[in-house]
C-alpha cells in the first residue's frame, strides 16, 4: 500500500499478504543478523537501529535471584554495558555483630549467605578458634564436614532448580527442591532447624547426631546419584538448554582471577583451585575426592562442574560417616563451650561456667585473624579484630558472591539479554551475602 493511499484513509484494497514471506525472514531482527554476521551488518543503512538505550532490570525481578538491580545499556537486544547496583538488602550484619558476644554472632553470620549457612558459621567459628587457639575434637571436625557437604548439595540443588527455572525448565525446580528437602530434613533431625541451624559452635558442634540419623543420611546418599542422573537425562540432551548454555558467558581464566573470582566459576574455566584441597581445614585432607574442572568456562561448564561437585560431596559425606571417630563433639574447654546439661545439677564449677558463658560470654585475646574456607560459591573469608573483650571489634565476611558479581559485566557485555539472564543464573549470586 502506498503512502498516498494511507493518507486518503484507504483501508481495504490489496495489502501484501504477510504470510507470503517465510516465517524466519519475518522474525529476523536486526540484532540476530548482527550476531550471525558479526560487524558486517554495521553499515550506514542500519544507522537508525544502532541507538543505545538504557533500561533498568530489577531489583524485584525473579530472574535476578534476589534483589539485584542491573542498569543495562542495550543496543537492540545486545547488552553493551551492565552496572550492578546492590545494597537493597543491606541489613548491617557486620555492624550488629560488634554489639554481640562471640557466641551470639553465629546466629548473625548464618543469615548472610542464606543458602550456605553452615559455611558461614564454619568460617566465623574457624576465625574465632584461630584467635582462641582452640583445638576442635576430631569427631566435631567430621560432623562439620558432613554438614558442610550436605549444605553444599542443598545449595547446589537450589541453584539448579532456580537456574533451570530462569532458562524456562520448570520441572527442575520441583525435582531439585524435592531432594533439597531431604537434606533439610536431615538438618532438622540433627539440629532442630531446617535453615539457619546454628549447629556449629565455637569449639565444635552443638550436639551429637541423634540415633537413626546416619541411616537416614545414607539413604539420601544412595538416592542422590540416581536423581542426579535423572536431572542430567532431562537437561543434557535438551536442545534448548544446550543452546542457552554452550559458549555463553565465556570469560578467560586470567580475567576471572583478576576479578578475584573463586569457586565453581573459576573451576569451570579449568583452574583446579579449591581451598578444601589447597589449604585443608577441618580434616578435609583425610577424604578422597576430586575437584571437577571445566574446559572453556562457559555456562555449560559451570553447570557441569556444579553437578560433578554434588557427586563428590556425596563421596565425602559417605567417607566421613564411615570413618566418624568416637569422642567428644565439642571441646572440653569449659571456658569456651557450655558444660553438658546434666553436670549443672551436681557440679558447682559447671554451674559457674554455664552462668559466665551465657551472661558474659567468653573473652577472646586481642588480635586479628583472617581465615577462609571453600563455600559452595567460592572463597568465604572471615576477618575478626578482637580487642580482648567478649565482643568482636570488627567482623568482616569476604563473601564470594560479592566479589564474583564483578565478573558479570564481562560475561554479559556483547551478548544477548537472554544470555545475561543465563549468566546471572550460572553466577549463582546470593544477595543476602552480597549486601550483608
Amino acid at each position: 500500500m502506498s503512502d498516498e493511499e494511507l493518507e486518503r484513509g484507504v483501508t481495504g484494497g490489496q495489502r501484501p499478504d504477510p504470510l507470503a514471506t517465510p516465517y524466519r525472514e519475518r522474525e529476523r531482527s536486526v540484532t540476530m543478523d548482527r550476531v550471525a554476521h558479526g560487524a558486517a551488518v554495521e553499515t550506514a543503512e542500519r544507522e537508525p537501529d544502532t541507538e543505545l538505550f538504557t533500561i533498568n532490570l530489577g531489583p524485584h525481578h525473579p530472574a535476578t535471584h534476589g534483589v539485584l538491580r542491573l542498569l543495562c545499556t542495550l543496543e537492540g537486544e545486545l547488552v553493551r554495558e551492565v552496572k550492578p547496583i546492590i545494597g537493597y538488602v543491606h541489613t548491617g550484619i557486620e555492624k550488629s555483630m560488634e554489639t554481640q558476644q562471640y557466641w551470639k554472632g553465629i546466629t548473625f553470620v548464618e543469615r548472610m549467605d542464606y543458602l550456605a549457612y553452615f559455611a558461614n558459621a564454619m568460617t566465623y567459628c574457624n576465625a574465632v578458634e584461630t584467635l582462641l587457639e582452640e583445638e576442635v575434637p576430631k569427631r566435631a571436625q567430621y560432623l562439620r564436614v558432613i554438614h558442610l557437604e550436605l549444605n553444599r548439595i542443598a545449595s547446589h540443588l537450589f541453584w539448579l532448580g532456580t537456574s533451570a527455572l530462569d532458562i524456562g525448565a520448570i520441572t527442575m525446580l520441583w525435582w531439585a527442591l524435592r531432594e533439597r528437602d531431604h537434606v533439610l530434613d536431615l538438618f532438622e533431625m540433627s539440629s532442630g532447624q531446617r535453615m539457619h541451624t546454628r549447629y556449629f559452635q565455637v569449639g565444635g558442634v552443638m550436639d551429637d547426631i541423634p540415633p537413626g540419623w546416619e541411616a537416614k543420611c545414607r539413604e539420601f546418599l544412595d538416592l542422590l546419584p540416581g536423581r542426579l542422573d535423572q536431572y542430567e537425562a532431562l537437561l543434557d540432551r535438551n536442545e534448548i538448554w544446550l543452546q542457552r548454555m554452550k559458549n555463553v558467558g565465556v570469560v578467560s581464566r586470567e580475567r576471572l582471577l583478576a576479578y578475584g573470582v573463586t569457586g565453581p566459576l573459576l573451576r569451570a574455566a579449568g583452574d583446579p583451585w579449591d581451598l578444601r584441597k589447597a589449604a585443608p581445614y577441618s580434616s578435609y585432607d583425610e577424604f578422597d575426592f576430586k575437584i571437577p574442572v571445566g574446559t572453556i568456562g562457559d555456562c555449560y561448564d559451570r553447570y557441569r562442574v556444579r553437578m560433578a561437585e554434588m557427586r563428590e560431596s556425596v563421596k565425602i559425606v559417605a567417607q566421613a560417616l564411615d570413618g566418624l571417630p568416637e569422642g567428644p563433639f565439642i571441646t572440653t574447654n569449659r571456658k569456651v563451650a557450655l558444660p553438658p546439661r546434666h553436670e549443672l545439677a551436681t557440679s558447682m564449677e559447671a554451674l559457674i561456667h554455664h552462668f559466665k558463658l551465657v551472661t558474659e560470654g567468653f573473652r577472646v585475646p586481642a588480635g586479628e585473624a583472617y581465615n577462609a574456607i571453600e563455600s559452595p560459591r567460592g572463597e568465604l573469608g572471615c576477618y575478626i579484630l578482637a580487642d580482648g573483650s567478649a565482643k568482636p571489634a570488627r567482623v568482616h565476611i569476604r563473601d564470594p558472591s560479592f566479589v564474583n558479581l564483578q565478573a558479570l559485566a564481562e560475561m554479559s557485555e556483547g551478548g544477548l539479554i537472554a544470555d545475561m539472564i543465563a549468566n546471572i543464573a550460572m553466577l549463582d549470586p546470593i544477595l543476602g551475602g552480597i549486601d550483608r
Partner: protein
Amino acid sequence: MPDAAGLELVAQRVRAAVGGDSVVGTHHAHRQAMLEVAPARVREVLAYLRDEDEEPYEFLASLHGVDYLPEEPRLGVHYQLLSRARVERLGVKTRVTVEEPVVPSVVDLFPTADHQEREVFDMFGVLFDGHPDPRRILMPEDYEGHPQRRDFPVGGEPVLFTYNEHKLPRWYE
C-alpha cells in the same frame, strides 16, 4: 603462610625495592603474617609483591576496612594477598587518620578491588585516590556518615511509623 622469619625477609625485600619508608612494621600472630605499610606507598608495595618479588603474591583475596577506635591512626585498610602456587597468604595493612583518610587505589592492579574499595569508602569513609567510580555501594547514595565506624551509633536512625511521619520531613525521598 610465611613464618616470622620469612615475613622479615619479605619486609626487607620490600624496603630495598620500594623504599626504606614503605614498611612501617611486621606482625606475626596465629601463624598469620601481616605487613604494615605507609598509606602513600601501598600501591607500590602491592605492585612489587604482585610482579617483582621473588615470592610473588598474584591474587588479592580480600580487601576490607577496620576501625581501631581507641588507637591512632584509627582507620585501617587490609589487603589479603594470596599466592596460589605456594598456597601462602600475606596480609598487608595500612592505617590512616580520620582527618586525612586517603589511600591510593589499587583497582588498576587488581580489578577485584573495585567493589571492595567502594565498600570500604561507604562503611569507613576511606577515600581511594584514583578509583574509577568512587561511589557508595551498599548504603543509599544520599546517606550521611560512615556506619561501620566505631563511633557511629547502632540504630541511630529513626524508624518510620504513621504516628511520627509528620516529624520526619521529606522521609519519602
